[in-house]
């Protein structure tokens, strides 16, 4: 239990580093909009989705009807639909913690699950549950902290949010090292860049994920063998 806790904590350090400025920034913006640290904490705890929470600040300014709020929330977070697909089978063994794992399936928790490597003396399930727990905890606590003391910070944290980019890159490089076939990276890379150039930075995420999924489905006769059969026994 102690070893699992330590391993889970160690795995979430990059996320803690990345969340610190983001959570603080969120708390400051919320308090500037008239929402104190309790509001920031509540929102972070129940929504647990950074980009949507920043967007919600514009909803709080008024003039947006609830139906629009719902559509924007669904579109912005639609990538989350893809996250669960990989874990339908795995979460079946989690008992009641399955619901916690689904609730906490944010970008960051997902990236931790993707990059999970077993460690001697630790329990896979416990490490994964604790890792997701740390992610929720950091996000909620840092958001609240932002509402309380964010404005007192004097050193410049400008650019520290690159930690999340670096984290995603490192995970991708590890996934590519273990993969037999790297074609999915090429497919999603091309679709991502093409959608970004065509649709712009604000709108490309969902279309590029859809295009990637569509092409990968078309390539299934080629890829299903090389990717799936090799991983069946792992």
């Amino acid at each position, binding site marked *: 239990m102690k070893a699992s806790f330590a391993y889970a904590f160690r795995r979430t350090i*990059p996320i803690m*580093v990345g969340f610190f400025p983001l959570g603080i920034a969120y708390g400051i913006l919320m308090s500037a*909009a008239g929402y104190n640290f309790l509001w920031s904490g*509540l929102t972070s705890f129940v*929504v*647990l989705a950074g980009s949507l*929470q920043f967007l*919600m600040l514009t*909803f*709080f300014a008024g003039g947006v009807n*609830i139906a629009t*709020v*719902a559509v924007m*929330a669904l579109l912005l977070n639609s990538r*989350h*639909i*893809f996250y*669960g*697909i*990989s874990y*339908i089978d795995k979460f079946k063994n989690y008992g009641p913690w*399955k619901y916690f794992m*689904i609730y906490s399936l944010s*970008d960051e928790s997902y*990236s931790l699950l*993707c990059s999970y490597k077993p460690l001697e003396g630790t329990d896979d399930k416990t490490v994964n549950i604790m890792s997701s727990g740390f992610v929720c905890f950091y996000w909620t606590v840092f958001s609240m902290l932002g509402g309380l003391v964010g404005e007192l910070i004097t050193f*410049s*944290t*400008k*650019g*520290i949010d*690159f930690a*999340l*980019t*670096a984290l*995603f*890159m*490192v995970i*991708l*490089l590890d996934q*590519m090292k273990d*993969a037999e076939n790297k074609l*999915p*990276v090429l497919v*999603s*890379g091309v*679709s*991502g860049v093409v959608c*970004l150039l065509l649709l712009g*930075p604000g709108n490309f*995420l969902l279309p*590029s*994920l859809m295009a*990637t999924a569509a092409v*990968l*489905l078309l390539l*299934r006769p080629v*890829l299903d063998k090389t*990717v*799936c059969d090799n991983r069946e026994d792992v």
Partner: protein
Amino acid sequence: MTVDAGRSLLIIAVCAACTQLERALPFLMFGRRAVPRVVSYLGRILPMAVMTVLVIYCLRGTSFASAGSCVPQLAAAAVTAGLHLWKRSTLLSIVGGTACYMLLVQLVFV
């Protein structure tokens, strides 16, 4: 607060419900019967593909209009990837890449 507390709570509740619905959707659809083979194929193959798109998403603000809006990202990304291919230490790669980016945006491309 431009909108009142009740309206704010409603916005939070709707956003939370929509997000949680999307996170739960695959489990609601396939939870009780065997997972179709095509879904498990996607489940195995998508993590790598989604991570690629997320890296592009993180770097989406890169613009070649000026050196300041592309050099820090690309240099820090190269440092991150280089360190990782060399040492395969997650923490070293992330700290190295982030430090490089912070130095560039704070001292060089102010």
